[in-house]
């Protein structure tokens, strides 16, 4: 596949065309209850052609990246553009025609493609698994790490040529404990909540070595813990819950394609409307949300999006006021709004749409102890395990794996199944404290789903711990 070599001569009867090549190799290593599951590897290669012609737009994708294959896929995309031009929602003659030039590589670069061998991975994971202990209440546990290497090349008819190399590491620990009719699952920052770009230094960053025993001990502790109480109280959300709160009730509602209606048949619409940008108070003055593709280790850092727009850090919400949406160049043109470089596709076989990339809550000034001491009655909640929100991204209900009561400014007993519910439009206005950089963690998810046809994409979220006041909190079934 021509990832870094000259393309054949391509003559396309079109106003603009692009070819986006993707090659992705992954190695998945899993040890479950001290048994190594078979090594699973994959190699996925293909190309998507996008064409503007006669005011229309079309795409076509294939695994055939031969010169003839490229000509055929461009022809197919051009045919779509022409035949649907009269129905096109946007006149492609008015759309940007990027000609970007540049390179990008993850912190580990291209060199770290095999830092650990498969055998070394399995040895490491087996040792972790065996450290879970032999308590008979531990009924299941799994330790894993997926390593993914991706290269993307975007070539455009105006001379654009961008090559971006990524290396992703996604370790995971999950332990299930069961006794007396109750089952508890505890994980290390959620299922693949630890997901970053780079090399094996990521493991040390999250204390992966020795984590399985710690997670197992917490699962057993939760088995014996009381249920979370119900009531209106404050919540202190750990970063591994904050990332979900940001993702669902800020990220998705700010996606410009949702605001433009593209997602209404599937993922949903948004309570945010185009007229809110520039004036709407989304949250308290402590709320600062950025689109930041420049933080090297974060999962969705890159130099250019999949439409060829250069990626830069931008504020979406500043001091609580909504500034700009998550919209790529095409959506910006359609909406007449500024945006960011977030037109992204999950692979070669899906077209770019507006996605979150790295969506971060900027740290504040509060220490963790200071936030605890400011709470008279509340719950410290860790690690998301349940998420649900309405199709306008307003009424939400989220659940966490572990909680600790806070009484009179002090952390108290561990509680299980802490849940809370609220409404996005008012919840962020109750943001009372934002943790400082010492409380910040860089997490994310490889599994953000959206789009027709549907796509699962990697997004990063960095957040400190935060305090919200007057939240509707409740526990599991009595």
């Amino acid at each position, binding site marked *: 596949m021509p990832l870094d070599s000259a393309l054949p001569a391509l003559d396309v009867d079109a106003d603009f065309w692009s070819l986006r090549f993707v090659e992705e190799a992954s190695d998945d290593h899993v040890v479950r209850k001290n048994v190594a599951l078979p*090594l699973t590897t994959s190699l996925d290669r293909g190309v998507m052609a996008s064409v503007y012609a006669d005011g229309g737009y079309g795409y076509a994708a294939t695994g055939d990246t031969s010169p003839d294959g490229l000509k055929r896929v461009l022809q197919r995309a051009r045919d779509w553009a022409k035949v649907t031009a009269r129905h096109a929602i946007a006149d492609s003659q008015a759309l940007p025609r990027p000609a970007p030039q540049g390179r990008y590589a993850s912190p580990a670069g291209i060199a770290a493609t095999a830092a650990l061998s498969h055998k070394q991975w399995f040895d490491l994971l087996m040792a972790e698994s065996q450290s879970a202990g032999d308590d008979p209440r531990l009924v299941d546990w799994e330790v894993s790490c997926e390593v993914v290497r991706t290269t993307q090349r975007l070539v455009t008819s105006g001379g654009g040529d961008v090559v971006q190399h990524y290396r992703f590491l996604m370790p995971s620990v999950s332990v299930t404990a069961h006794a007396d009719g109750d089952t508890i699952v505890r994980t290390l920052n959620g299922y693949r909540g630890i997901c970053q770009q780079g090399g094996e230094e990521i493991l040390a960053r999250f204390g992966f070595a020795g984590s399985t025993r710690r997670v197992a001990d917490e699962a057993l502790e939760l088995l014996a813990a009381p249920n979370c109480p119900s009531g209106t109280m404050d919540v202190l959300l750990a970063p591994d819950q904050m990332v979900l709160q940001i993702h669902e009730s800020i990220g998705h509602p700010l996606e410009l394609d949702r605001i433009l209606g593209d997602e209404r048949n599937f993922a949903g619409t948004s309570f945010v409307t185009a007229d809110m940008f520039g004036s709407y108070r989304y949250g308290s003055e402590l709320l600062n949300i950025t689109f930041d593709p420049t933080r090297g280790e974060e999962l969705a850092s890159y130099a250019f999006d999949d439409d060829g727009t250069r990626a830069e850090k931008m504020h979406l919400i500043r001091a609580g006021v909504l500034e700009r949406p998550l919209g790529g160049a095409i959506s910006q043109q359609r909406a007449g709004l500024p945006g960011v470089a977030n037109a992204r596709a999950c692979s070669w076989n899906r077209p770019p749409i507006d996605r979150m990339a790295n969506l971060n809550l900027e740290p504040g000034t509060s220490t963790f102890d200071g936030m605890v001491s400011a709470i008279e009655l509340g719950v410290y909640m860790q690690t998301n395990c349940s998420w649900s929100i309405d199709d306008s991204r307003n009424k939400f209900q989220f659940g966490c794996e572990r909680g600790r009561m806070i009484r009179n400014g002090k952390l108290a007993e561990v509680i299980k199944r802490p849940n809370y519910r609220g409404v996005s439009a008012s919840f962020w206005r109750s943001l009372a404290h934002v943790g400082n950089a010492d409380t910040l963690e860089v997490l994310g998810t490889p599994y953000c789903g959206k789009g027709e046809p549907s796509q699962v994409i990697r997004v990063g979220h960095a957040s400190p711990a935060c305090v919200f006041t007057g939240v509707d909190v409740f526990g599991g079934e009595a």
Partner: protein
Amino acid sequence: MSVEDTMEAYFHAIAAALDGATARGERYAATFDGEDTDFVRLNQGKVRQPGSVSQRYLTLRLVQDRRHAEHRQSLTGDLAIDTASAVAALSALRSAVTDAHDDPHLLLPASVQSSATHRGGDLPPAADVVDRILDAAHGSDLVGLYAAGPVFRGFADSSGQRNWHSTTTFNLQFSLYHRADKAVKSGYAGFRWDDAAFAARMHDARERLALVAQPARSLSPGKYRVYLAPSAVDEIAGLLGWGAFSGRALATQQSALSRMGSDGGERLDPRVSFREDTANGVAPSFQAEGFTRPSMIPLVEKGVLVGSLVSPRTAREFGLDANGANSHESPESFAMDAGDLAAADALAALDDGLMIGNLHYLNYSDRNACRITGMTRFATFRVQHGRIVAPADVLRFDDSIYRLFGANLEALTVERELLLASETYGCRQMSSSELPGALIREMAFTL
């Protein structure tokens, strides 16, 4: 030859090359999945993104004694190139297997059971269909996706087993919007496009849209009597499909239905029966490791948990019988028994409550207790005296399956709907569900 026949021959040619490349003491298993799909995304009664995707994937597993490894790769569609790369992948797996641990939970098919299913479709060119859709939707705010074309699944192994399943289908999923989140959802799917059938769907959607356009009511949280249309029941079935019927999840107490697994445990209403109904679904009759599926697997019978979906690995690990489940042990042809309430009488039977057309974004609020939460979506109506009086603003529910389909279940409809999956994550899904509507005495809404 048809495209389905051509693709089957192509896959069998690759399998023949793998047969020749397999050494003594080795076994291979290969699965093939591919599709040639036209996707046309629609918004505001116009075309947002039209395109085509042609993709083929080969997943190859090599087994030596009790050691094995697996590799999945995309293919180009060129037989010579793809045969060479498949053989190269087999060679690469050979070195991976050398380093592999023995797998105590490896289970391979004990017998050769080949099969072939071709179900061709009769589809007009996608661009023509789009013209018809948008003409019919003229003046409406229509949003959705048209996906059409052949989908292929295949299996081959070194024992000579060959399985093939291909269908050519279309699936139009669309919504008509009044404003904001007020809309009706509809769909039209099948093997042969019929203008009259589509016109009937569009007419029905327009009629319901007129109801949605009435002033909406914002209802307070509380307990409401509800009628769940089959598409709303499908959302609940989809959540349960996320591990509740998994043999492994049940064996390790992680299933949301684990409390039904013991004597004296939870029960559903005796009218509730769930099954994996492969014979009446659209999923292949074989799974990725070559195990074939029985025509039907009872899961819940008259309110009692009687079965589960068991993958080969789970079967070996927990001493169960494998029954053709894939590794995720989720239903692919889920069916629920019908009841005795005529769908035409559902509003009258509901009398005073909510008629819920669709649910959205379900999850467990307490998996251990099978308590679930989610939102109403699209056409949900306030009903009084058996008549629709207003569309309802979205509401959040939080309630237990044991209550909803246990003590609070009042009736299931005589009619069931066959709902063909429209999911397109990675590929077009080949699964379905066949479900009745459900009248429920009381459902708890919290927000």
